[in-house]
């Protein structure tokens, strides 16, 4: 790879053309080829497989699988669970970001680490902790069931487990964004006599709206697709507490492959929409998001 003196000279001479900061054409093409081959085989092929398998027994079977009673109930439960998780985690994310970025207090780094914690807890363990805390064998769980509140193996349990798993998304997007924007505009509003709510609605929210949408998008995608945690707390009651990913597992294990992939294709389509909306946001409002500053 050691260039000859002649090449070295031309590198120096051609510096303005950019040859000093890129690789020679063969290396470049090799890397591009590896990237395209790797991503196609590794990422695109599994996605393609979902749709091919979903339609493997024909369009009729596909739509029959999606309009099945249990499938519809799973779709409904997934939407409800995700709506609750997104709602609560959005309020939490805004509060956490407001407190962390507008004020100085002790233990702030510890607080940020705590917010991140659910990311490094296995989803199965997330389900387990709520089963131990709220299940029928725990003091709290038996007290709740005596008062007619069923949480485990029911919708509230699914919602709580999903909230845990998706807790960091909105906060993690808003904190760096609001830190980068600073507090000068909020201070100006407050100095002019605006109340806290007014300052938030008319000054902060317009500044963070795209970042907020971005966080909600990711939170929603993860909430709808969550599997491990809800698998523990659902108890697998058919048609009662199954979300779409759980329904996929049940159908797959019963060898109803086409039906399993049909529901999977719906979820895959959903993640497609998420990715599309995400890259649209990055392209149109990249300078108003936290993670993408400086990206092409």
């Amino acid at each position, binding site marked *: 790879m050691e260039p000859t003196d002649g090449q070295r000279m031309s590198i120096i001479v051609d510096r303005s053309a950019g040859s000093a900061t890129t690789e020679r054409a063969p290396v470049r093409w090799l890397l591009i080829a590896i990237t395209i081959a790797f991503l196609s085989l590794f990422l695109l092929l*599994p996605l393609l497989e979902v749709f091919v398998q979903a339609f493997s027994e024909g369009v009729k079977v596909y739509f029959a699988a999606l309009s099945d009673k249990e499938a519809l109930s799973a779709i409904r439960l997934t939407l409800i669970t995700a709506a609750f998780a997104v709602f609560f985690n959005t309020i939490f994310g805004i509060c956490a970001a407001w407190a962390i970025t507008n004020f*100085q207090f002790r233990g702030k780094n510890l607080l940020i680490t705590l917010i991140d914690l659910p990311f490094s807890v296995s989803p*199965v363990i997330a389900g387990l902790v709520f089963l131990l805390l709220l299940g029928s064998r725990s003091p709290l769980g038996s007290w709740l069931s005596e008062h007619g509140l069923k949480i485990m193996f029911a919708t509230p349990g699914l919602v709580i487990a999903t909230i845990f798993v998706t807790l960091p998304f909105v906060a993690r997007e808003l904190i760096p964004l609001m830190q980068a924007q600073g507090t000068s505009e909020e201070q100006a509003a407050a100095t002019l006599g605006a109340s806290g709510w007014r300052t938030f609605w008319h000054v902060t929210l317009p500044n963070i709206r795209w970042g907020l949408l971005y966080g909600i998008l990711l939170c929603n995608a993860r909430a709808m697709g969550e*599997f491990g945690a809800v698998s523990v707390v659902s108890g697998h009651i058919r048609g009662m507490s199954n979300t779409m990913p759980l329904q996929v597992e049940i159908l797959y294990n019963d060898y109803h492959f086409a039906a399993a992939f049909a529901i999977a294709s719906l979820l895959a389509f959903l993640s497609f929409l998420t990715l599309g909306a995400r890259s649209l946001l990055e392209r149109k409002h990249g300078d108003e998001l936290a993670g993408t500053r400086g990206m092409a």
Partner: protein
Amino acid sequence: MTTASSAGWHRSRRALPGLPLTLGITLTYLSLLVLIPLAGLFFRASGLGLSGLWATLTSQRVLHALQLSFGGALVAAALDAVFGAIVAWTLVRYEFPGRRILHSMIDLPFALPTAVAGIALTALYAPNGWLGAPLAKLGINVAYTPIGVILAMTFISLPFAVRTLEPVLADLSKQYEEAAATLGASRLQTVARVVFPAVLPALLTGTALAFARAVGEYGSIIFIAGNLPNVSEIAPLLIMIRLEEFDYAGATAIACAMLVLSFFILLAINALQAWNRRMASA
């Protein structure tokens, strides 16, 4: 953070309202949903006693499951680092048709529900699958072996490696590379001695994040793994099996072992990120 001088912070503390409300909500929410439930897990585990914990954790099956989850995640994270670096470099530095689409596809494993990824990978790499059949002819069985576990782990955590590296590569000023070339360094020398040290903290952080994700992963693995005890059974699945047997103590012990190990990984990630920031601001 550029405008937040110390004077500004001081003023903001007096001028902006809402600290008690927002901090109160934040702390209550975190306590109810994260701190108390996790503390409950460790409280349960302490009820087992050290000897009980030790007996559960040192059984052959549990040890193997932990070994596969952590060892497999290590291999997967290393693979993610290598391919993630190539992919990030290519996507940031080169212009080619389809670049934009590939760039937005990077997050697919993150957006795709894990169960969907799991059954898709299984269908693809099963002995009669599109990729599984040719691989089987070469004598490589992916599905229902530890290789399948590592494959699913690599798939699911790839975005972490690429996404951590991309912004750092994009921000890297080309003037150092130009200077190195002017001083007579070959391109390989420049990449090895100028570019690589500058992106190393980000590469390590991305790898650590990928590792953390792969260790706890469940949904995408259980379909392709085949789940043979002592062969291809991961720790999260063993927790699930213990729960189905109503052996809550066993499940709790394995979960605690995973959390303690993951905690040290989280510490390492935080140290790496601090190092990363210092490198970036230097």
